[in-house]
């Protein structure tokens, strides 16, 4: 695994005699840190801290695509920009789009933090290196203790300087925590370098999902309505979509999570594609409304950017523990298709697939992603839009024959009901959350009708056309299958590849369609002697697989808020084969 390398300039006091603020005056150095030996010292860095425009200009090209820039926007005034030779502010003009940019006024934040120590302006500003280091330590989960000790030793003769620097360090650390910026920051990387020639760009999961939703709605021939409420780490989707209005997108920042989904369902009723997005706690609040979308059989896409739970849990840490919530988490028998993205780039196709299923089957669909996927950036081969098949929606507009009732619950061969937009003459009808008659949609409590409608709702979702499960790496049978879903794709794939390189009989099966599961999955899993399921939860997919197929799937679990290490999966493979 590549070590995290981060380069910054000038974090400690610059020892350059060249004029500060010009590109000649930039002094920089690089810190490598990681839990394993650093194998790729020559690699481009992941993170660049730019304390002024000149530092940015000199170093930015070394940063790998999708890498993170942390900039002190307080230093990006006209004078410094001119000194560095910038004609416009790179923090604002979009020229850094290839990378992820996080900027705040580090100078001001530092001054505020060290105010109680009564330092002069110049001395106070020197503490901003420590402020930034504190932020970095938070981002990468490093201990502040050794730095504090070092500061106390270094400034033994000027304890107030030591304390000011420590205060700045702590303030930077606290900023990371309270501003929940960790969600914006890739803390590891898993995808191999692109292999195919072609046009590439960087994309975060949130961007890819937003683009996929826009494309999905266009392929369906619909306007999109997005109802959202701010929550880490899902807000980025609302931010992206709110800039894409020319694609028929209306975004609505609702008063709460329930209003977000309620408005999306209302928009679907009115003939748009309703979309909402949140993270675990918000998804919990939306559960009742999801039941209504299932009951009224309206298309809806619900994106869940999973984070550590339960309750508020670990907002900035990644976890996959909402699988039960997605598949089972509603009152009543309330089946709903669930898709899980494995990477930022994969999220694009998953979002389109969610739109397709939602509109073709008149059902809510949940798209699972997680904090890592949502905010990590990776190189993405720009897709050729000509290769995406449209799936146009046809609204029902034929009036029934004289004296015949309107049948909003008439179905096609896929069991999808007709979609009738308000505004269509002679088709006025009422829908709602009370059990309804199989044809007219009128309230109907009859026992046989409820049985029938429950069976139809289940049958419709079970019959969603999804591709057969393929073996991601390895053979369709053998000693061991490592079954994964979501963002564990990277470490599992690498671990299986390494194990196979050592001659072990192990294959990787990565599941995208969590519900319904691929039709051939049970047969496929039974062809392996052993099945292990690494998940960042306490064994949720494992339980579903056992339930569905009576296979002896064994859990490999991790819920530390950290992604799996390849070595951990490798150890699990060794153990399963022992």
């Amino acid at each position, binding site marked *: 695994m*590549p070590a995290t390398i981060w380069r910054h300039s000038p974090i400690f006091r610059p020892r350059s005699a060249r004029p500060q603020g010009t590109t000649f005056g930039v002094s920089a150095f690089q810190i490598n840190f990681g839990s394993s030996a650093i194998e*790729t010292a020559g690699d481009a860095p992941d993170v660049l801290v730019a304390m002024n425009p000149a530092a940015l200009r000199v170093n930015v090209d070394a940063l790998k*695509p999708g890498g993170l820039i942390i900039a002190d926007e307080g230093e990006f005034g006209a004078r410094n920009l001119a000194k560095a030779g910038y004609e416009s502010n790179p923090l604002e003009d979009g*020229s850094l*789009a*290839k990378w992820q940019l996080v900027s705040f006024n580090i100078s001001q934040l530092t001054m505020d933090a060290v105010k109680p120590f009564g330092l002069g302006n110049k001395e106070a500003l020197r503490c901003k290196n420590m402020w930034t280091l504190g932020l970095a330590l938070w981002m990468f989960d490093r201990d502040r203790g050794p730095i504090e000790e070092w500061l106390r030793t270094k400034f033994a003769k000027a304890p107030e300087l030591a304390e000011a620097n420590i205060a700045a360090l702590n303030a930077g650390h606290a900023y990371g925590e309270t501003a929940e910026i960790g969600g914006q920051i890739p803390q590891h990387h898993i995808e191999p*370098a*692109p*292999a195919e*020639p072609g*046009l*590439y*760009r*960087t994309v975060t999961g949130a961007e890819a999902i937003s683009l996929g939703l*826009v*494309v999905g709605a266009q392929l369906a021939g619909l*306007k999109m*309505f997005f*109802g959202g409420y701010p929550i880490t780490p899902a807000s980025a989707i609302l931010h992206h979509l709110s800039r894409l*209005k*020319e*694609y028929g997108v*209306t975004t*609505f920042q609702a*008063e*709460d999570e*329930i*209003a*977000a989904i*309620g*408005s999306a*369902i*209302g*928009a*679907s*009723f*009115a*003939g*748009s594609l*309703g979309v909402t997005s949140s993270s675990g706690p918000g998804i919990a609040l939306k559960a009742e409304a999801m039941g*209504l979308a299932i009951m*009224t059989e309206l298309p809806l896409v619900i994106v869940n950017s999973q984070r550590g739970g339960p309750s508020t849990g670990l907002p900035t840490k990644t976890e996959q523990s909402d699988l039960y919530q997605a598949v089972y988490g509603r009152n009543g028998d309330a089946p709903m298709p669930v898709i899980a993205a494995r990477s930022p780039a994969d999220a*694009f196709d998953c979002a389109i697939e969610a739109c397709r299923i939602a509109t073709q089957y008149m059902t809510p669909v949940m798209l699972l992603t997680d904090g890592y996927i949502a905010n990590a950036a990776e190189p993405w081969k*720009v*897709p050729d*839009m000509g290769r995406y098949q449209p799936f146009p929606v046809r609204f029902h507009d034929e009036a029934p024959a004289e004296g015949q009732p309107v049948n909003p619950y008439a179905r096609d061969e896929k069991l999808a009901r007709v979609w009738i937009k*308000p*505004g*269509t*003459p*002679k*088709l*006025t009808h*009422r*829908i*709602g*959350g*009370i059990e309804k008659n199989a044809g007219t949609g*009128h*309230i109907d409590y009859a026992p046989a009708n409820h049985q029938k409608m429950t069976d139809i709702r289940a049958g419709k979702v079970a019959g969603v056309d999804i591709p057969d499960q393929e073996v991601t790496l390895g053979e369709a049978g053998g000693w061991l299958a490592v079954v994964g879903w979501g963002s564990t794709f990277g470490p599992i794939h690498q671990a299986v590849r390494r194990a196979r390189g050592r001659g072990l009989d192990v294959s990787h099966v990565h599941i995208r369609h969590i519900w319904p599961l691929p039709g051939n999955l049970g047969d496929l899993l039974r062809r392996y002697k052993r099945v292990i399921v690494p998940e960042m939860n306490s064994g949720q997919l494992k339980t579903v697989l056992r339930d569905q197929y009576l296979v002896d799937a064994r859990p490999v679990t991790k819920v530390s808020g950290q992604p799996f290490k390849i070595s951990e999966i490798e150890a699990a493979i060794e153990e399963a084969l022992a």
Partner: protein
Amino acid sequence: MNEMTKLTAKDFATDQEVRWCPGCGDYAVLKAVQRTMPELGVRPENVVFVSGIGCSSRFPYYMETYGFHTIHGRAPTFATGIKLANPELDVWIITGDGDALSIGGNHTMHILRRNLDCQILLFNNEIYGLTKGQYSPTSRVGTRSPSTPFGSVDRPASPCAFALGSGARFVARGIDVHKNLPDVFKAAHAHRGASFVEIYQNCIVYNDDVFAPFTAKENAGNQLWLKAGEPMLFAGGTKGIALDRDQLAVKVVEVEGGDWQTAGVLVHDPKNRSVAHMLVEMPLVGFPVALGVVYEDPAPTFESAVVEQNMQASAGKTPNLQALVSKGQSWEVTKEPHAI
């Protein structure tokens, strides 16, 4: 060829059996709405009734229009999505005191502050009827109910005061069985923006006659029907509402021989928000109940602002999916890079 003139109340009634208790005030409101619709010049297919949960929320099933019976307290959220998706639709929200002010208080506040163009009919019976009689957020202190056998101890919310406080631009009141109710609906419909109408609705089973102090025939003198530009007179013109300038409050004054000017009776100005606040908060004892359009002062609607901004943001841009996905800094990979 004008088909609209042909529509009658019957055209707005469904074939569904109405399932409220015999004698429920909801029947009267339903009839009033069905009678009003033909006069509004609307086509049934352009009308959507949206409701939450509660006795009144069954309303959409009885209207031959589009209808959505949603979940408890959340009707305003669905209505917002419907109206934003298709601003041409004529959206009516049917709700109750529990639905709008307890479980859905948050949404009521926000739809009013945003000023979504819709009519909100709040059926206030001061009780939870559907769940068999628990006290509600509008029940008066001391209400005995299955959940408050010794009487409720919390103070009630005033729907119209809540609406004004939330920024509503149209606030009106009516009584379920009163002949003026259709006029209140017409005014609500004519207003562009969120029109909030509180309807005093009698629950014959769990809270019978709770409004009798002003709705009973013999107490009709306690009704103050407001009309723009006319003096605030009630009790057959023998009493009026005047301003107590020292207290900055309203007071009841006697009117001798119709000389309301001398008595200092206020002339109703629906745009006067301060007086509106005083009118909706008049206590039940010693004051009449203000009815009709208490406050109306139009402001731009939410959906029109959203549409306008969407248009401005899209102006001059040609949607192109290939360009969209290729956006940002990109680079060409020409040869196979080494694997990590």
